[in-house]
């Protein structure tokens, strides 16, 4: 469940009604993730019922929904076995329902979608983490995505399926800016995992407050990374998260913690915890476990527990948890999870922590280890709670 990402997009889309339109002198950048302004989902499709997932079609864009993203993360190592983490994300946010746009005008610049992309690379041995952010409008082919297969781009950053008709096509990721670059080819090793209830991921208690969500949990990765003037040949594994939705979060939610782990016994785990203002975990929090043989185990909030065991203070004064104890009772799984690097915070328009982690523990008594990514949002001081819609 990646409603946090949806919130991300919603915040930055900032649709307001006319009565609030006073533009002020710029304040500090950085919008609280969970600040969702009165967004109107009318005119957009809602994730209300089951969806028939077809691939490669569903790798493509779903324009009738308000927000959507393609989230690639991965761990790679170079020839000297130095380890790196990477993230390449494309976010789409629609400004108005497609019908409204037709009434607007005939300029080629008319765009309904605003696109944002993030690129981040962590050098775990060297202790460096760098990130880049871009914006573009979905017009004039500056940014966009195909409707039929996985092909998404923002200017010269792109994630493209090399064989458009093949649902398990390899995907090429290319992005570079200002000294940070990646050029990777990803080969999918598993079929898409439908999250939630056959891909319908409920975010809150009300129907319609949901998204369609799937992941491709393992990819064979090969290519190059560019960092600090050097180009390195690397290989490793990657994870893709895909989600699209239209409606807002529930009130009282302040942020989330999301975990994706690839274990050396061939299984993959995804957990997400929605945190509430009062400190509790929302019961809609959930997760999935994909067994080595491809069986899907859905996990609801009562079936797992996550305990932060350490904290880290970012240069901006935000305190994040920095190590966790994971317990999935249903699977007899216990893991100690720790970041590869303390500072993997992205400090652009949005402030969140997304970084590579190591996991060590046991499953069914057998030792097990792995790597993955953790995303932490909503840890700035006292962000205002989401208004009820």
């Amino acid at each position, binding site marked *: 469940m990646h409603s946090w990402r949806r919130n991300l997009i919603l915040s930055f889309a900032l649709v307001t009604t*006319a009565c609030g*339109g006073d533009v*002020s002198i710029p304040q500090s950048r950085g919008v609280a993730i969970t600040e969702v302004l009165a967004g109107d989902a009318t005119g957009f499709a809602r994730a209300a019922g089951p969806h028939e997932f077809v691939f490669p079609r569903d790798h493509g864009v779903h324009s009738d929904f308000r927000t959507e993203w393609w989230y690639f993360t991965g761990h790679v190592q170079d020839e000297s076995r130095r380890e790196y983490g990477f993230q390449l994300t494309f976010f789409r946010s629609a400004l*108005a329902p497609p019908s409204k746009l037709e009434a607007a005008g*005939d300029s*080629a610049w*008319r765009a309904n979608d*605003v696109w944002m992309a993030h690129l981040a690379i962590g050098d775990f041995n060297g202790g460096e983490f760098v990130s880049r952010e871009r914006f573009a409008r979905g017009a*004039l082919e500056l940014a966009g995505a195909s409707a039929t297969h996985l092909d998404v781009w923002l*200017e010269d950053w792109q994630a493209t399926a090399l064989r458009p008709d093949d649902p398990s096509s390899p995907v090429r990721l290319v992005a570079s800016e200002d000294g940070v670059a990646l050029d990777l080819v990803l080969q999918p090793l598993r079929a898409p995992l439908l999250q939630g209830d056959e891909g319908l991921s409920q975010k809150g208690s009300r129907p319609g407050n949901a998204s369609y969500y799937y992941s491709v949990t393992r990819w064979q990765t090969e290519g190059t990374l560019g960092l600090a003037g050097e180009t390195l040949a690397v290989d490793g594994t990657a994870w893709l998260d895909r989600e699209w939705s239209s409606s807002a979060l529930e009130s009282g939610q302040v942020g989330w913690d999301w975990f994706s782990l690839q274990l050396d016994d061939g299984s993959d785990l995804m957990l997400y915890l929605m945190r509430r203002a009062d400190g509790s975990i929302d019961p809609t929090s959930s997760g999935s476990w994909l067994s080595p043989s491809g069986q899907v185990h859905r996990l609801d909030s009562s079936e797992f527990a996550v305990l932060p065991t350490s904290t880290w203070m970012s240069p901006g004064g935000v305190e994040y948890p920095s190590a966790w104890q994971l317990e999935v009772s249903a699977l007899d799984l216990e893991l100690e999870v720790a970041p590869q690097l303390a500072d993997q915070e992205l400090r652009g328009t949005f402030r969140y922590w997304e970084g590579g982690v190591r996991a060590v523990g046991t499953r069914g008594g057998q030792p097990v280890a792995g790597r993955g990514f953790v995303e932490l949002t909503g840890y700035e001081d006292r962000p205002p709670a989401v208004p009820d819609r």
Partner: protein
Amino acid sequence: MARLLRRTGIRYLRRHPWQFVLAVGGVALGVAVAVSVALATASATRAFVLTNEALTGTATHQIVAGSEGLPDELYRQLRVEVGVRAAAPVVEGFVALAANPARSVRLLGIDPLAEGSIRNQFGADPATRDFPLGELLSESGAVLAAAGDERFALGQSVPVLVDGRQVQLHVVGAVRGAEDSGLGDVLLADIATAQEVLGVTGRLSRIDLRLDGVDEDDLVRRVQGILPATARLVAAQARADTTVQMTRAFELNLQAMSLLAMLCGLFLIYNTMTFSVVQRREQFGALRALGVTRAEILRLVLAEATLIGAVGTVLGVAGGIGLGNGLVRLVTRTINDLYFVVTVRELALPPLTIVTGVVLGMGGTLLAALIPAAEATRVSARLALTRSVLEERALRTSPRLAAVGVGGVAAGFALARWSGGGLAGAFAGLLLIVLGAALMAPVAVRLVAVLAAPLGRLAGAPGLMAARAMTAGLSRTAVAVAALAIAVAVIVGVGVMVTSFRMTLVNWLGHTLQADLYVSPVSPRGQAATLPLDPAQLAAVRAAPGVQRTRSIRAVSLETEGGATQLLVVEHDEPDRQAYRLRGDDPDIAWQSFADGAVLVSEPYAERRGVAAGDVVTLPTPSGARVFAVAGVFYSYASDRGAVMMTRGVYDLWWDDPGISGLSVYLDSPESAQAVAEFTRNALRPALVSVISNRELREQSLRVFDRTFLITGVLRTLVTMVAFAGVLGAILALQLERAREHGMLRATGFTPAQLWQTVLWQSSLIGIAAAILALPLGWLLAWVMIHVINKRSFGWTLQMTVPAEVLWQALLVAVGAALIAGIYPAARIARTPPAIVLRED
């Protein structure tokens, strides 16, 4: 300096308050005029620069093209192929308020997502929570306006006019602090909205870039590599500079005139100080006898001058600021009329200008006081002083002075005409001419005295006295004459110049405006417009009853090396030969050449770029730069920027632009004008067009002209006031000096009436002497202004016309001013009984 010495000076000033007031007034007025003009022009320039900076942001370069603009695609190429990170597209234009079409507002279309790299001064960070990004991008007609602008209140829907279309704008947000950053008259919109509102979908006005850092040269090269043929990559600063340059000549002319006012003020100082020195000659003599050194006398006089200068300068600067507030409106209006759109909200007060005003005021005062101060030191302590020695010296030196004066005038004239001098040389030459003429004043006075000798027979004793008195008080009379002469000369000169200009303009309008009706789109000023009509509508107008035929004109702007160039495209046929007068002897050959595909250039263009018949010009076309032969130069007073003219045939060869900017309609008979105008307006619906008659267009043009020269008129009046004060002071001084003589005259039997006559006769003689000097000087000034200054400033050839009224008026003003200035002294003189006068020492 001894305290008591200083006290003598101050007490003297206090006992003669009128002298003090006049002198201070003269300085104050002079400084006020100079400062106000400097402030007005500085404010206009600053407002432009500020707005420009806000619009340009941190951009180092801009990609610009002519009125056609750049294709959308270019931006994508820049971003995706060349990889320029700091690039922002701009669509810019003007819209007129439907409620008040005379007012136009700039519409700036930007991509908020690309803006962060270039502009942050909008006070609007798209990423903050208050920015109405969604509405701006998705609604058509959505704009942000300056907070507090009542015309565009938050939430309102405002109709505007562009190119004859009416469009609705919706104000979805307000930008605070917009005025301070020069964006007071700017509407912000998404680039898509701007394209749709302005009717330029598919085109961008320009792309702002920041190309810096280590890769700068490489980036510049790569950007230039993908530019279409009509586009150019220019340095942002250079572009701004070029635009500001446009008003340089206009501003310089204003400033020169204001300095003339200053000059008259300084004459006043000279006058006053001289008088005070002369009056106190005995006192100075006594002081010198008591052992006061020359240096101390000098310092005393200069200290008095400093006091006058200080008070006058302070008043002048304050007055200049007040005057500037009024003047800036006039200046801004003219700049808007003639050059570019700029809004000045308040008077800028750059410290440098104020300081310059102070320096001018104080420095000028001290300079003017130097000669009288030096004269004061030359007062000897000799126990018996004879005035006649002084006057004799004046008489002796007057021929020499006149010789120097003539030399000065000749030198000034030569300097002005010297082509290498530019505008500065021309103004310097003018100054020399004026000063040279001033030196000839003593000779003029003597001339008048000689001519007035028969006055004794005509006017009796008073007349005789008046005539003799001219030469008796030569040193003082000459100064009064000089001051008045300069002022009257300025009146004459400027009057002739303006009249000549207007006459030339009227003639030009007469033969250029041949059609009966002129059709153009209702569009905001400052915009290259296209008449929104399709071939069917055009055919309908052509076939309308009463219409003999129509001709179209296309006006576009091209981006060339020297900045923007206007291109006029005409349908060439016979009437052109009458409508446009060509320079040179063989117009037929030129016209033939024009018909064959060469271009004509307007006179300002030719002057500015040094182009003449037989040369070539290079113009950027969509398929690359093309060279066009120049067939000739045509006279045009439409603008001082200059234009290139070509036939429609040639234009269609190289440009793919079927639009027209205006239509001239020729009628069978003028009576059908009303009906045809109505018909045309209907035929071109729903577009909003303006159809005006020949006469209306002419009147409109002259109105703009008259508005422009309103400033000149105002300045002229101010100069006159200063000069009048000078003459008043001089004549007053003259008369009071001879108070003793007058007292004696009364004692020996002169009636008050006769004294009146004496004073008034003398005043009128002064006026006549001034007129004798002023008329030729004024003519000379006009000549230099018309043939040198105007030509060098703007490039126009003006026909010099010297209307008799100007001369008569000048004569009247000269004698009248002198007479009026003589009234108060005459009254004072006539009133004092003889005894008192004699008792004085």
